[in-house]
């Protein structure tokens, strides 16, 4: 039985997760979940972000683990191999995911770091297409990759096999535009499980909120929900927002489609969009465009949505001033 489970995880790490990404992506695309927002520029960026790091960052990490560490610390190899599996898995899971939480959070809270992470947030849709979408330098300096490589070198390779696959599954599903967590909020007897689930791991609801183009509207919250595998870090550090709802729109409110190469290679290549954070003279962090004033069509659409809400229809019939 253990051999069978081990084989599943080995296959997940070698080809299974890649296959899952393509199957989910195909399902999302077929269901029209990207809408009309997957333009040529976005498609090129998503494909480049999926392939280029595999060709550039993969060999760099392999060099770090297979050449640099054995050369710099030859005696340290396998020194922690005596650690039992359960504790090894716990050590790897915490070391990897808490480091990624901090890496991610600092890119949001330290202004000069923001532009290295902006590419991941510029996608105006959620799904497998944008799950790997990152600036090349953000991917290259992914701190948790090196932490985990060190732990594998020290002898925790076997538990890492399981943790990496589980983490990858959770983060992929949290980015997916298929809201697998919705039944947990809709079916009453599943509510206790939902309560535990949404506080423990990243779900589409909590992670989509992080990718919303607005914050503090009750659903969207890009100022928090930084967790990748574990959402627990957001609960502990008070950066969590749980609404059990999904944002209406994603991305960055002032995004005007910076060229794919600028988003991938900034600051080496700059955007030609005037006023963009990635342009040569652009601001470090640009202020949000207030959504209700973004354009008149949006404003009309919003008013229609408000009018269509049953509770408001009932309220306005007795008190029309509620919409003013």
């Amino acid at each position, binding site marked *: 039985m253990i051999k069978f489970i081990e084989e599943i995880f080995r296959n997940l790490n070698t080809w299974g997760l890649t296959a899952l990404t393509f199957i989910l992506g195909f399902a999302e695309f077929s269901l029209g979940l990207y809408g009309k927002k997957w333009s040529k520029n976005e498609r090129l960026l998503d494909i480049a972000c999926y392939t280029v790091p595999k060709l550039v960052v993969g060999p760099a990490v392999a060099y770090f683990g297979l050449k640099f560490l054995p050369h710099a610390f030859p005696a340290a190899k396998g020194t922690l*191999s005596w650690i039992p599996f359960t*504790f090894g898995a716990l*050590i790897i899971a*915490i070391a990897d995911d808490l480091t990624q939480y901090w890496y991610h959070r600092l890119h949001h809270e*330290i202004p*000069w770091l923001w532009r290295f992470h902006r590419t991941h947030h510029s996608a105006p849709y959620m799904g497998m297409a944008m799950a790997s979408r990152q600036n090349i330098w953000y991917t290259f300096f992914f701190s948790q990759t090196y932490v985990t490589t060190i732990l594998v070198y020290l002898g925790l390779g076997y538990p890492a096999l399981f943790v990496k696959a589980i983490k990858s599954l959770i983060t992929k599903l949290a980015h997916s535009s298929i809201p697998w967590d919705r039944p947990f909020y809709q079916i009453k007897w599943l509510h206790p499980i939902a309560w535990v689930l949404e506080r423990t791991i990243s779900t589409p609801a909590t992670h989509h909120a992080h990718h919303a183009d607005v914050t503090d509207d009750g659903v969207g919250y890009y100022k928090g929900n930084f967790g990748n595998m574990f959402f627990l870090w957001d609960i502990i*550090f008070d950066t969590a927002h749980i609404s059990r709802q999904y944002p209406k729109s994603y991305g960055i409110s002032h995004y005007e489609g910076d060229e794919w190469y600028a988003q991938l290679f900034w600051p080496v290549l700059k955007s030609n969009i005037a006023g963009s954070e990635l342009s040569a003279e652009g*601001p470090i962090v640009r202020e949000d465009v207030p959504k209700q004033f973004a354009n008149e069509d949006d404003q009309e659409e919003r008013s229609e949505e408000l009018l269509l809400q049953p509770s408001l229809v009932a309220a306005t019939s007795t008190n029309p001033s509620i919409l003013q």
Partner: protein
Amino acid sequence: MKTPKSTVQKIFRNAILSLFIYALPVILMFITFYIKGEKPWLKKDTKQQTISQQKQKDQ
């Protein structure tokens, strides 16, 4: 553009708590070993000795 002071303070507070969380599985592991009276790292030493002895023999 500077990071607000309140953000920096919160980052430092949370970072200190994080150090404890990083150490938590290691602390839990050694508490478990202490309760069970186990010293698995010694077994590893023995194994390493055997391997190095084997190498010496081979030479």
